[in-house]
């Protein structure tokens, strides 16, 4: 299949019968370029499942105010529209993530946590927005898994049996990677550039033009999450950190130690959060 054909198939994912209904409803809302806090608030409030998931995520270790947000309005005000919009997408693809690849949700959560910690260390203004980019960085895997379930399962098996990186297995099977697919779909869904670039370039962070720093953070967060062995994203291997990212972030040895310690600590709490998710 050629790349153009692939792109149009990916972009038309919302016509799939298998797409989660919660995501279908949500897409109608998030594809609107201008949406008010009230509109999005009432959209979430109308769906009790969505409401409880949003509250669970905002109270999780991703955001650093565990257990303190009890209402949707509070969440919207504290986190802002962009963050809530991205998070909605994250929680709506939760099942699809689990179905595509067991452990992908945990990997995404880990990457969101690492992104926030690194962004804070680097003094970025909106660490929560960067954490959403981390949460969604592998959205292309979900989209490919939904659109081409059989072929994607083959790529997953190939990565596992051949001990190769998932991204290389994808390229072998499809000629494109989840980063391409994620970039296309996030443009189609009118994501802001500070999400599009980290999603599209988290494996080639040197190509980011608009938000190179956020993209570098998500790339490094992905590396850290795999180094910590948290979750599963198709293979167990730590990808090499891009040297330009290492230089751009310019973290001292002590910075790195702080980040890893805070990250591992938060992952311990995240495990408890995931546990509590299973029980309810």
């Amino acid at each position, binding site marked *: 299949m050629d790349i153009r054909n692939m792109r149009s198939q990916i972009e038309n994912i919302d016509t799939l019968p298998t797409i989660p209904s919660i995501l279908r409803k949500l897409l109608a809302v998030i594809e609107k370029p201008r949406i008010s806090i009230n509109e999005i608030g009432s959209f979430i409030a109308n769906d009790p499942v969505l409401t409880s998931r949003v509250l669970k995520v905002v109270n999780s270790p991703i955001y650093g105010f*565990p*257990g*303190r*947000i*009890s209402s949707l309005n509070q969440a919207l005000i504290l986190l802002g529209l962009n963050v809530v919009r991205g998070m909605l997408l994250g929680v709506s693809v939760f099942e699809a993530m689990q179905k595509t690849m067991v452990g992908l949700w945990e990997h995404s959560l880990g990457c969101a946590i690492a992104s926030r910690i690194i962004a804070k260390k680097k003094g970025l203004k909106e660490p929560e927005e960067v954490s959403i980019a981390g949460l969604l960085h592998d959205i292309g895997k979900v989209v490919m898994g939904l659109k081409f379930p059989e072929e994607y399962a083959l790529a997953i098996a190939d990565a596992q049996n051949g001990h190769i*990186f998932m991204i290389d297995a994808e390229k072998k099977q499809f000629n494109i990677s989840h980063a391409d697919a994620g970039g296309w779909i996030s443009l189609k869904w009118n994501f802001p550039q500070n999400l599009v670039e980290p999603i599209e370039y988290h494996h080639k962070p040197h190509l980011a033009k608009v938000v190179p720093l956020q993209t570098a953070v998500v790339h490094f967060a992905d*590396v850290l999450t*795999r*180094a*910590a*062995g948290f979750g599963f994203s198709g293979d*167990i*291997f*730590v*990808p*090499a*950190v891009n*040297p330009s990212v*290492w230089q751009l972030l310019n973290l001292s*040895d002590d910075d*790195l*130690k702080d980040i*890893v*310690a805070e990250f*591992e600590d938060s992952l*311990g*709490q995240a495990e*408890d959060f995931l*546990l*509590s998710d299973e029980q309810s």
Partner: protein
Amino acid sequence: MKRVSVELLKPGAKLAKPVVNDSGMILIGEGTVLKDSHIDRLQSMSISTVFVEGTAGPSKTREELLAELDDRFKKTEDEPYMQTLKRVFKEYIEGMSL
């Protein structure tokens, strides 16, 4: 931190997370060392589990954790900066209280 059923709580356990009611109000603060009176109160409420300090279940040994770290890094450990990164994780595992 581990999750423990309220029925199995023993005095002396230290809360790793605050106990909150449905509206988010803190009933017993994080870090509280539980006494019999706390446990009685918890058991009379509609709360089934709480988080206390300590590790959950049988965890991996340090050697297992380090071997898994080696496995994860084996494809890229010769790339620039990867030794530094690996060392930081290794030191973290070596410093963990298991």
